[in-house]
């Protein structure tokens, strides 16, 4: 692997004693229980752990999709736990790009339209967003699939559309929740390498996975168990 040069001194995400508890019947489930993480701009971080370890919950909290029971989450020095839903929507739209295990493309929209969708919510003018979407789809190697609907695409292609969509508003952070979970090893490897490439371009990447082979693409791996960070290991 090529050694990456990164600025590691400016932080983009900080989790301070973050916890997320659920009530399941009479029992309180501590999905995330006192997590402290600092992620700097340009970092490629993997969060691994068995299912039920709280890694997806942690990612939902970082991605402003969910609200923590306690603790603070800072995104670009803004405490997102104190924000209103419409501000959170703006933050998700501008600063974060999501990649999901099940791709989550809108089935009625073509590849091109799916990629333009996040820009519609940011009121980007039509010509600009179409040009940008074409550029991104070309970047992920799908310039010949612009007018295809998701069901006409293979799993790997769908996930590449999803990556292009995540990049639409040029966010600083890419959050990927088991992005290779529904792909075979080869396609999974391709998608993982795509993250490496994005990392090289300076994007901050947080990858949630249970697959250690995929996690090894990251610079740092956090292991989560029972809602707590077990250890942190660097990629060597």
């Amino acid at each position, binding site marked *: 692997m090529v050694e990456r040069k990164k600025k590691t001194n400016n932080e983009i995400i900080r989790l301070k004693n973050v916890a997320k508890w659920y009530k399941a019947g009479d029992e309180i489930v501590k999905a995330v229980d006192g997590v402290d993480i600092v992620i700097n701009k340009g970092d490629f971080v993997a969060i691994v752990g068995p299912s039920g370890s709280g890694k997806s919950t942690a990612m939902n909290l970082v991605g402003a*999709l*969910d609200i923590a029971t306690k603790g603070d989450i800072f995104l670009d020095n803004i405490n997102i736990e104190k924000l209103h839903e*419409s501000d959170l929507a703006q933050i998700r*739209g501008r600063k974060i790009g*999501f990649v*999901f295990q099940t791709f*989550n493309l*809108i089935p*009625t929209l073509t590849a091109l339209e799916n990629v333009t969708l996040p820009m519609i919510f940011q*009121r980007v003018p039509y010509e600009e967003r179409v040009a940008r979407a074409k550029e991104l789809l070309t970047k992920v190697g799908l310039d010949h699939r612009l007018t295809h609907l998701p069901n006409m695409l293979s799993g790997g292609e769908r996930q590449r559309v999803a990556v292009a969509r995540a990049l639409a508003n040029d966010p600083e952070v890419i959050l990927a929740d088991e992005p290779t979970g529904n792909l075979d090893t080869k396609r999974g490897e391709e998608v993982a390498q795509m993250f490496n490439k994005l990392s090289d371009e300076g994007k901050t990447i947080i990858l949630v996975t249970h697959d250690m082979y995929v996690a090894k693409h990251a610079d740092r791996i956090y292991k989560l168990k029972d809602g707590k960070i077990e250890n942190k290991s660097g990629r060597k």
Partner: protein
Amino acid sequence: MIQDYFRLGFNNLRRRKLRSWLTMIGIFIGIAAVVSLISLGQGLQTAVTAQFATLSTDKLTIQNAGTGMGPPGSTAVEKLNDDDLKLIENTVGVELVIPRLLRMVKLEYNNAAKFTFATSVLEDKEKADLGYDALAIKTKEGRLIYSGDSGKVVLGQDLVKKSVFDKEVKVGKTIKIQGQEFEVAGILKKSGNFQVNGIVLLMEEDLKNILEIGDEWDLIVAQVEEPKEIKEVAEKIKRNLRRDRDLGEDDDDDFSVETPLEAVGAVTDIINSVNIVVVGIALISLIVGGIGIANTMYTSVIERKKEIGTMKAIGAKNSDVLSIFLIESGLLGLVGGIIGVLIGVGLSFGAASAANSALGIRIISVEVNFLLIISAILFSFLIGIFAGLIPSVQASKLRPVDALRG
């Protein structure tokens, strides 16, 4: 921005084609019913008003009960007679009375036959003219008949056409009525009143002779001295007739005295009440259609939870999701409305032309009101939006993390 949402909504409706169509059926039945019936009703009203436009406001029509909507004279048990005529003539406020016979006769010409109505022309010149005036009769060819014109007839416009006897009837020709020969003295100008277009005018004596009628009349037109007092005069005539016929307090009138406006009013009332009933039914259909839209939108929200979560994850605010879903349900109403209008306009033209060809004359014309169409479409769009309101609010308020779980 908003057009993007319209495109999104339209895409979604197209994806669920069958469900969208089924949902819209309620709306387009309602709208089609409203549009076609209002268009036809207006056309019908215009036609009816035209029928009565020839009647002036200073004349009363007296008929025997039982004649009703059917051809006068055809069903009445007891006919009006000369005694009645005198009684009416002597009623205070009546200036002049014009009795009239109106009977079905058989016309023969060029070895073909046709049944139509014949009416009588009085011997008295003044009364004959008043009779003509009352029906706004004018000739196109030839002349009208008066005293001394026995053996001559005047024919309505529709009777002389080549299509009727396979040969055009011209002035001076001989035509058979009830087997007796008559000379055609004149042909009438086309009238707005379709009864006039198909009428045969004969001298009173001629008509009585060929039909072997004695002392009887089908209707009596009474001209009043003061048009303002027409109602009072009508009451007096009623009272006189009741007394003459020895009707007790509990007995119903066995005759009718109608002012022309009452006659128009009666028909208009019928049309209006039919309209009200039909519009009521159409409104119920629209409400059911709205409930259908609400149901579809609820299902849609449940089915597309994950999609809603995804949209929120990629930056959609609650208001964006709300707009997208509202526009989608509005579109269901809008498209349903547009199709409904098209069906409704088509239906009313179809019904009108069917009625016209059955009557053999262009009497009912469809009046498509532009305002009606625009408001019908707008209304259906609003029904869609209204029906989709609660499901859309529900969709917009979903928490992203819950929605993403699907």
